[in-house]
């Protein structure tokens, strides 16, 4: 036995085995977050429980390991628990992206019994005033915290996820304290994305570069300063190979963010046929290599920061042309890495050691 996750992921990438899947169970949501990517809060269009369970059977056969149930608010789907329980019966690692406000005692019991790998809860501020102003729902902060506490009481793994915005960036310290008080890991996301209908309106709530710098520097995003190593001909990301997403109407996409064109619809064709035969999927996978090579050739800060071509596509119309927010984050990360390297070299010199290489510094 070994920790085979990295090797398995690499092999799955080569085989185009969609290990990680997101299912957007419903567009409906009981919150109205001002920066949300989803413009269809009111839309009740959705696949039925039976249709989602048929999808789960196909995903099992396709080789999926992790299924994330998302929305909208996934618990707003009337058959949420039937779908979640079916996912666990099929041995998927289950992630639930929720605002937690609909998690009463009964729901918390049923979630704990699944069990999920993690429940990832969106919290938009450290105080009710800031949070509820972002969600446009009075009482949403208290409802979310009550849901989290019910999950905590049952030993469910919970991750507090906070998109940093112009509305809450003054509360970073308080959000760290809130996560500590709730005994939760905290992930602050510096990305605000355009809406799925192409509107750039959410970007007006993007956090200031100073706040983004603070998040990256403190490792509040995805841990240590994000970096990526590229080799010519490699893939930028798992789009079209490792990832797959299905929206509430059954449209299949090579990634949740990449909604340029669906691979097809599960109501019309078997998912396995769509995945293996689709030119859209193949083109997305090839695009990932093109993007990787373009960034590698460009060099500098943008070549070393994890890049999402879907977000670039939404803003610039070209997946190889980085969006403004990415450029800012990449520059900040490069500066912070350089400062860390200078600090490490100075410490090593003081201790009489050879300075660590850039790569080894970034990997630790």
């Amino acid at each position: 036995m070994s920790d085979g996750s990295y090797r398995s992921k690499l092999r799955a990438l080569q085989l185009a085995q969609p290990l990680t899947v997101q299912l957007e169970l419903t567009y409906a949501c009981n919150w109205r977050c001002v920066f949300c990517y989803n413009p269809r809060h009111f839309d009740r269009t959705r696949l039925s429980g039976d249709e989602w369970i048929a999808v789960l059977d196909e995903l099992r056969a396709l080789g999926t390991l992790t299924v994330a149930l998302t929305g909208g608010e996934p618990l707003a789907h009337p058959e949420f628990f039937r779908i979640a329980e079916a996912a666990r019966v099929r041995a998927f690692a289950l992630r639930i992206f929720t605002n937690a406000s609909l998690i009463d005692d009964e729901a918390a019991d049923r979630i704990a019994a699944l069990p999920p790998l993690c429940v990832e809860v969106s919290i938009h501020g450290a105080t009710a005033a800031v949070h509820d102003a972002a969600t446009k729902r009075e009482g949403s902060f208290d409802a979310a915290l009550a849901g989290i506490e019910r999950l905590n009481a049952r030993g469910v793994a919970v991750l507090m996820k906070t998109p940093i915005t112009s509305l809450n960036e003054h509360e970073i310290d308080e959000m760290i304290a809130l996560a500590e008080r709730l005994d939760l890991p905290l992930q602050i996301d510096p990305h605000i994305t355009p809406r799925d209908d192409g509107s750039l309106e959410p970007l007006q709530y993007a956090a200031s570069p100073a706040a983004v710098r603070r998040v990256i520097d403190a490792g509040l995003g995805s841990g240590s300063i994000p970096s990526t190593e590229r080799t010519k001909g490699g893939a930028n990301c798992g789009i079209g190979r490792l990832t797959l997403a299905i929206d509430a109407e059954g449209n299949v996409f090579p990634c949740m963010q990449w909604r340029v064109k669906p691979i097809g619809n599960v109501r019309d064709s078997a998912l396995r046929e769509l995945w293996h035969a689709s030119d859209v999927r193949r083109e997305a996978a090839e695009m990932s290599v093109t993007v990787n090579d373009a960034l590698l050739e460009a060099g500098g800060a943008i070549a070393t920061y994890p890049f999402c071509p879907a977000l670039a596509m939404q803003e610039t119309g070209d997946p190889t042309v980085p969006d403004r927010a990415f450029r800012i984050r990449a520059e900040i990360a490069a500066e912070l890495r350089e400062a860390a390297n200078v600090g490490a070299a100075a410490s090593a010199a003081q201790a009489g050691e050879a300075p660590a290489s850039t790569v080894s510094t970034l990997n630790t």
Partner: protein
Amino acid sequence: MTPKIGPNVAWQIVDGEAIIVDLASGSTIGLNPAGTFVWSQIDGSRDDDAIAGAVAAEFDVSPEIAASDTREFLQSMHARALLVDAAEART
């Protein structure tokens, strides 16, 4: 013992090798092809003798070696709570 996959486990096969997620800890382990074969035999109805018999037939090893290796593997997985005894799980 009649092994059954534990309630806190997620798993999938990638290129003939099982990847197993312990949902209680979030940790992931990978099995080699032999371990994956044993894992695929676990259905909550076959006991360790039956699984060892399948291992002996699949890998052309003596029944004694198959039984010893299979028990060691099952005990290791049981100790990590990745497997439970089907009889205990029913009670």
